[in-house]
């Protein structure tokens, strides 16, 4: 992992002293952060909010048909990292991302790359369900409509139904597609948001603590859904629940204060953590 040192050298030449002070703490990652069939390849990613560094030199792959979960104590930067994967951080003033993030070999932070089609390929589900104040149907049809994915109403109907089916919501809402999406229960809202994301047929889905606002039953349904979605999509999920990470993901990455401490097969991480910090976290000594 010589890249860390190189990055440090590079960093020192261009960073201010304040930035340097926080950059010096970056640690080396334990374990193999590459994937067998990678879709997204991240190398030496730094994320800054103004003078504060939120992500320090993180390298991680997200492979085809796998669920990668990111765990760690709150404020460790896992959500920040996730949001930088489809450039959602662009909406935050003062946020800078350096390093390399590639989707199928394309640099997503390339100046020429347009975030609009990127986000059509890399969808995102948020911590709090955020259905639009529109009908259930219009919520799902929103993405296909703006991108012009369907040619006529029948196709759109079909796509909406298919998406709701995949999200496991069809049976519950098929009778009331014209009612506002905000009237659904929390779990249903979150699945509606997932259906909304699927409707655009993204290649990668990012999920930012998708179950944190849900009750256990709704959580179980969403987790089942995630497992099914793995057949067609690459998924990165941030979670504060280790049990959830263990249940849904194939690989797990442990973040701590902006550093990626350890990454590996999920069952390895939970049964045999290599790093002291990972072990402390998993055994519940802090977090």
């Amino acid at each position, binding site marked *: 992992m010589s890249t860390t040192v190189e990055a440090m050298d590079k960093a020192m030449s261009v960073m201010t002293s304040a930035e340097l002070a926080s950059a010096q703490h970056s640690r080396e990652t334990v374990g193999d952060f590459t994937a067998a069939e990678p879709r997204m390849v991240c190398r030496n990613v730094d994320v800054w909010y103004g003078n504060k560094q939120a992500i320090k030199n993180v390298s991680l792959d997200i492979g085809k048909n796998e669920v990668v979960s990111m765990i760690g104590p709150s404020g460790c930067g896992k959500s920040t990292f996730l949001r930088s994967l489809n450039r959602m951080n662009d909406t935050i003033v003062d946020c800078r991302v350096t390093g390399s993030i590639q989707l199928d070999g394309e640099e997503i932070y390339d100046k020429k790359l347009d975030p*609009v089609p990127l986000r059509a390929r890399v969808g995102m589900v948020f911590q709090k369900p955020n*259905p639009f104040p529109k009908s259930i149907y219009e919520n799902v049809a929103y993405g296909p409509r703006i991108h012009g994915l369907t040619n006529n109403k029948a196709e759109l109907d079909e796509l909406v139904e298919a998406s709701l089916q995949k999200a496991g919501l069809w049976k519950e809402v098929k009778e009331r597609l014209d009612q506002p999406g905000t009237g659904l229960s929390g779990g249903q809202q979150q699945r509606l948001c997932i259906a909304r994301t699927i409707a655009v047929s993204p290649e990668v889905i990012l999920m930012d603590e998708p179950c944190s606002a849900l009750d256990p039953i709704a959580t179980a349904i969403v987790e089942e859904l995630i497992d099914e979605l793995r057949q067609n999509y690459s998924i990165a999920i941030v979670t504060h629940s280790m049990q959830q990470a263990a249940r849904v993901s194939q690989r797990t990455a442990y973040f701590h204060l902006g550093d990626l401490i350890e990454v590996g097969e999920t069952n390895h991480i939970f049964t045999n953590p290599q790093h002291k910090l990972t072990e402390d976290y998993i055994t519940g000594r802090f977090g």
Partner: protein
Amino acid sequence: MHTWTLILLLLAVMALAYHLGMKRAITRVGGLKQINHLHSLPAYYGVYAALWAGIPALLLLGLWLGFQDHFITALVTAQLPPDLVAAQSAGQIDLILNDIKNLATGNIVSATVTPEIQAAATQFARFEELSTQAQWLAVLALALGGASFAWSRTEPQMRARNRVESVFLVIMVIFSSLAILTTLGIVLSVLFESLRFFELVSPLEFFFGTNWSPQIALRADQVGATGAFGAIPLFTGTLMVSLIAMVVAVPIGLMSAIYLSEYASRSVRAIAKPIIEVLAGIPTVVYGFFAALTVAPVIRELGAAVGLEVASESALAAGLVMGVMIIPFISSLADDVINAVPQALRDGSYALGATQSETIRLVVIPAALPGIVGGILLAVSRAIGETMIVVMAAGMAANLTANPLDSVTTVTVQIVTLLTGDQEFDSAKTLAAFALGLTLFVVTLALNVLALSIVRKYREQYE
């Protein structure tokens, strides 16, 4: 100016009462050394005495000033020779009384002065003098009486602070109830005069009649005997001017709010937003001047250039300028509601690959719609009630027309016209102004209540 002298004197009595009350408290407790045996600080005993001296006297003075005129007028009227009063309408008696008052105060009189009126005027002046003397005596006596009452009650055990505080609390309650009193005053005064108007002119004619010409009597036997009171042309005129204003203000206000809150850089926003809001601080009379002397001629010339006939006081000129006045109103309200739309909704849209304008048009605006509609309703209510611009630029002719290049008149213009000419207080013309005022008040009140409830519901939705 004698009233002001009396008030100053009263203040002096209060100051004296304060001083004596404080001293009395200290003496009664046995000097400064024993001061901690007083229930309250000595100053409170002073304030207690000052309040007793001031409040009853001031109340009496206020009542006296408010009703003195009524009493004297009634007295003088009662003593007028019966042949002068008989066979006169209420309006004419008012005119005579007006003359008497003017004569008594040395002003110019409208009619020739008959000996009866001269006598009544002398009597009026005498009554007034008497009343003033009595008023001085009564007010000062009450002030001194109040002070001495407080003086006699001052004991070390008296809970002076609590009493003073409860008086202050009562005063504050009265102050805050003034809002209700004002509304009540508006409703009662306007309603009362309107009812008298509707005794002369049927509400049916007023609300559904299409002919408005209160100045000219069309036929001798006509209702109200002064003119026609069909208010439909005023309503349509008001609506047309307001509509033109909204057509100008809503798109410009809304789009600039969107641009400034979603697109503009921080520095552009910091400069442009206050400059646009300057428009809200400009007095309406300035807009009226601008409309009448700059915009109207330009429109007329433009119309002439393309072969259209434009009235010199067109609805268009007034509406356009009113629209400019309302722009900052719409933009700052829209800015508020757009900023209240949670970032999570925008994020949800961006995460699906929507562009910024798609997010604004398809997510932010629909989400903010109730708030925006509420803001627009408030703006409409403001446009309907706006007076100076239309008085100066829209004209007096009550045309029932849909042509914005024509001259129209509005409810507010007619209120001003009817009440600023020379006329007696009780004529149908004057009362018509109050009926229009009532209509205006009810409509704007309804719009405001509706708009505020929509906006409040909208705020709760995102809290």
